[in-house]
């Protein structure tokens, strides 16, 4: 008989973990998308993250399946389902959530150790928020033309992003990541694993501490997130130049219209032909 001591999760288990995290975190991000944030003065209160769900699960299960499941869940439930898909920006969020959750999961050797769980939960949250903040600042710098030239804009961006970061760490981080994780992890430990046909994580079976490989991998991932923005910036110049050339030539625009009109006429003729054949 096959021994059921797969802590390091066999493929079906990994898929189960993925599906579980995706649906749970997806549901939670759907809520956080819907609960409106409100402001008291300059400080914004929002239920930004239900990050405690993937954090909790990453401490109990295979971290990489949880991390990917969480990022996919957020993408599918709150971005695609609610039509909030933002293209390139989502890549950055996908990567930062994956890294934050994965590292938090790797930090915990014994899920019943509350201190370790609390430390890992905060570490994962702060890491994710910090990466998000850095990319956000870069993004606004690239999106707005003459970033430095607009009076008050650079300071205001740094101020809002800095505030948002502190705010998120203190409000979302402690209330919505630390406390729930402290409550859920020890409570779920040993109960939820058998439901997926696995053994609970112990000191002998965990994936070892975060090593150089993980840190390097995370750095590469983060670099990829920034690179996506940089790529947008260089594409920016290229297409800007082309568009500038197109805009300067009225003839070019007219040529495009003629081409479009020809295509339209051809399609319409094809269409009437097919409908005649069909009729």
């Amino acid at each position, binding site marked *: 008989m096959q021994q059921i001591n797969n802590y390091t999760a066999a493929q079906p288990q990994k898929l189960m973990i993925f599906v579980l995290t995706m649906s749970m975190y997806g549901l939670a991000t759907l809520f956080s998308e819907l609960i409106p944030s409100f402001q008291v003065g300059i400080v914004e209160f929002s239920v930004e993250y239900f990050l405690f769900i993937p954090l909790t699960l990453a401490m109990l299960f295979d971290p990489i399946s949880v991390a990917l499941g969480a990022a996919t869940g957020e993408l599918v439930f709150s971005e695609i389902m*609610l039509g909030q898909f933002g293209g390139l920006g989502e890549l950055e969020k996908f990567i930062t959530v994956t890294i934050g959750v994965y590292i938090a999961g790797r930090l915990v050797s014994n899920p019943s150790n509350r201190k370790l769980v609390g430390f890992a939960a905060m570490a994962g949250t702060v890491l994710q928020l910090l990466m998000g903040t850095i990319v956000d600042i870069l993004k606004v710098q690239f999106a707005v033309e003459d970033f430095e030239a607009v009076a008050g804009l650079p300071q205001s961006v740094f101020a*809002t992003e800095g505030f948002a970061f502190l705010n998120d760490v203190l409000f979302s981080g402690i209330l919505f990541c630390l406390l729930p994780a402290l409550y859920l992890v020890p409570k779920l430990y040993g109960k939820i694993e058998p439901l997926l046909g696995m053994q609970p994580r112990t000191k002998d079976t965990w994936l070892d501490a975060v090593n150089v490989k993980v840190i390097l991998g995370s750095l590469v991932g983060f670099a990829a997130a920034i690179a996506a923005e940089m790529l947008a910036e260089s594409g920016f110049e290229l297409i800007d130049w082309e568009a500038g050339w197109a805009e300067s030539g009225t003839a070019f625009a007219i040529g495009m219209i003629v081409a479009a009109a020809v295509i339209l006429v051809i399609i319409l003729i094809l*269409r009437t032909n097919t409908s005649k054949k069909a009729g």
Partner: protein
Amino acid sequence: MSSDIKKKFSEKLSENIMDKMSIDFLRTQVLKNAYGNKDTVIAGLDPRILLVWYLFFGLIPWFSHDIIFLLGCFILVTITTMLARVAGLVLLLFVLGVFSQTGYLLIVILLFGGDASAFLPLLTLSLKISTVSLASITVFSGLDPDQLANGLMWFGFPERLSFSISYAYRILPVLLQEFQNILLSYRMRGNPPSRKTFAGNLKYLIYQVKVIMHAFYPLMLNTAKRSRTTVEALELKGYRYAAVNKEVKKIRLSALRLTNNDLLFPALSFMWVAVTLLISSLL
């Protein structure tokens, strides 16, 4: 005065968390968004064409600073969004999202001594953001989830993503129902603090948040069971082998077929963009 503000503040706090969020409303809106608009022009189009179309309107606006061109794109995607008959909730979220991204920034800029010169870049930025989000609303909310999943698969996106999309739309109503049941049972057994004073209100809010957090415990256990059932059912049908098999993919995607309507849509969009470029070059 200050007690008045406090009262308002706490009212807002508790109102935001629970009272305005009716799970039933959410469920119907999501279902309506996914399956309620199958007969629209947009839903009838080929998903591959729409994804390419989205790639254009989701990317190009970021790279242009031409107000007329941006305005032209914005008008076009507004029309397509109307054609897609998107659920009200999604549109509401869109408006809130655009405001929170640029309206907030405008206030802070004024606070830091910026003047009207900051307004034009912000207008450009909001036009860009709205165009890109409306394009994504058209494609991702207008399409049937299975069509969307097939389209993404055709472009070589990981099978896991297509599976996630199809699965998410199906499981969400079930999950919402279950979450609501758990919350209701907590409510029935619980004894919420009185809301008469400010402190009481605050306690009530903390109580509500706590209930939501606690509700995730049974929800996680139940979802774990459900995930296992799902995966085992998939495994019975050889899902993991089928996912990487090219033959299976071919069979699954054979339903996708280009018609004349599918070509007409991008051609019309192209025409519109060309006209906007002409106008912007003339002005």
